[in-house]
């Protein structure tokens, strides 16, 4: 059986977990087995409806000791559940919590693990998973040699497919150890889509000259309904908040559309965005390295081009 872990930070199930279920369901089909999901704690959502992503059963561990994510505690519960349920493959989203817990589960189950997978494994004779390595600059195919296998799946690399189905929701009783972590505060950026979940991203670099010029970029993001990002020097100079920094040492993202404005396209920047489906580069220097990684390029002054693009988007939305 393929068991998919559903991450439910703040009682809300994230897109990354929906995608993980779809991936797990496709893998189960390939292996001729069932896809079931596991959720720890309580959520305000109708779990049966998760059937639409392809899980036939949802196992819920409702224990009141599971109030917040604690890697050590969750790893214990997930591995016990995997044993009780007889899972042969475990799937996690490669998001913050998935990364923090899946490798610990691998130790507890003596399972081989591949993190950051970007496609379904090959399972004809052996079990070989393809993942991104070198920060998206290459792929590696890795064979898992153990009986139990664990995969964390890169966000936005498989996609979310829905069908018309409901899952059976079942209570699962597992001994839950106490958590030794005390959460003292949670700061969420209000109303914004987290960058790693965003499908459209507008990003700015040093070419915008200063924080006072960010208005044109924010207008474009608003017209598109996109999230905003930036290059490292921009966040290092505090023109933009640190959580917007993408690249090798920042966030790695894979939106459907990444619009880079006044960013040169240094290799360390590309490492964070090269998995984007479509890249648009706006830069006044035709020699900017970013154009080599772009699908669409506009050679021009951002201060002229960006407002025009915003207007064109608003026009197309109004006219549609």
């Amino acid at each position, binding site marked *: 059986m393929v068991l998919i872990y559903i991450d439910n930070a703040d009682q809300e199930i994230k897109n990354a977990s929906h995608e993980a279920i779809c991936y797990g369901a496709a893998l189960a089909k390939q292996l001729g087995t069932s896809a079931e999901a596991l959720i720890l704690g309580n959520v305000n959502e109708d779990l049966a409806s998760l059937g639409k992503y392809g899980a036939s059963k949802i196992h819920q561990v409702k224990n009141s000791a599971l109030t917040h994510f*604690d*890697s050590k505690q969750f790893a214990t519960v997930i591995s016990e559940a995997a044993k009780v349920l007889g899972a042969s493959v475990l799937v996690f989203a490669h998001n913050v919590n998935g*990364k923090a817990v899946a*490798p610990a589960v691998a130790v507890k189950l003596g399972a081989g693990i591949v*993190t950051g997978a970007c496609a379904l494994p090959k399972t004809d004779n052996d079990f070989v998973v393809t993942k991104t*390595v070198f920060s998206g600059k290459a792929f590696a195919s890795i064979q898992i040699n153990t009986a139990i296998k664990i995969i964390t799946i890169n966000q936005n690399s498989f996609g979310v497919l829905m069908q018309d189905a409901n899952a059976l929701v079942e209570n699962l009783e597992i001994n839950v150890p106490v958590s030794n*972590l005390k959460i003292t505060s949670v*700061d969420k950026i209000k109303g914004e889509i987290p960058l790693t979940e965003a499908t459209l991203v507008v990003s700015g670099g040093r070419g915008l000259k200063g924080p006072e010029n960010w208005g044109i970029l924010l207008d474009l993001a608003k017209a598109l309904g996109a999230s905003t990002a930036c290059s490292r020097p921009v966040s290092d100079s505090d023109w933009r908040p640190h959580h917007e920094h993408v690249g090798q040492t920042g966030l790695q993202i894979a939106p459907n559309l990444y619009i880079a404005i006044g960013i040169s396209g240094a290799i360390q920047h590309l490492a964070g965005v090269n998995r984007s489906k479509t890249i648009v580069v706006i830069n006044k220097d035709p020699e900017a390295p970013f154009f080599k990684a772009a699908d669409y390029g506009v050679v021009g002054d951002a201060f002229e081009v960006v407002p*025009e693009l915003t207007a*064109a988007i608003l026009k197309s939305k109004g006219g549609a």
Partner: protein
Amino acid sequence: MKILVCISKTPDTTAKIAFAEGNTKFDENGVQWIINPYDEWYALVKAIELKERDASVTIHLVTVGGADTEPIIRKALALGGDEAFRVNNTSNDSMVVAQEIAAIAKQGAYDLILTGKETIDYNSASIGAMLSALLDQNFISAAVKLDLNGKIAIVTREIEGGEETCETNLPVIISCQKGMAEQRIPNMRGIMAARTKPLNVLEASISAQNTTIKSFELPPAKTGVKLVDPTNMDELVRLLKEEAKVI
């Protein structure tokens, strides 16, 4: 107070990524090796900051790798580690690496183990969580801030769309990322001192590989950028809608 910092060796961020031996090995030709940026800039420098505040702190470094990792370990000692361990195991299976580190950690009874968020070559982001399970210690991932208050660690970590702060008793394992500390450059005194600091070499003790790398592949080259006239943004919008189908 004893801190263990896990140091790994990665190709320089500008290194050309190419593969050899029928795409089964990373081509190390002409590659410059550096300390994995997360380990150096954030984990190690954070440990040094804690030592600067409290002279009773000792910083041990551990790396699992061949003799070719010694230059980067010396650099880490020059930045401010007190003593280093190298386990002579060249496996790139995370479980093997984690088990080797866990053996060192058990010997040293550390209050704090710091790792980087992930290595920039294999991007596993696994070692910290594996150590947590192997040592049965708490683990906090993707930390951006750390303070100590006696035997309590106060850690802020990244969560989707924000940050959360939590408290836990030592010992604890923390994976570090941007925000933890500021990058430093080793000074001459540190470089001189590093030459005489102990670098202990231990033989590999783990061999069973849970995973094996079969092959590498480079992504297909982009077919070439389509340039759009800067005065015709309607055309770009049309392309994004009808051709790329992303808006």
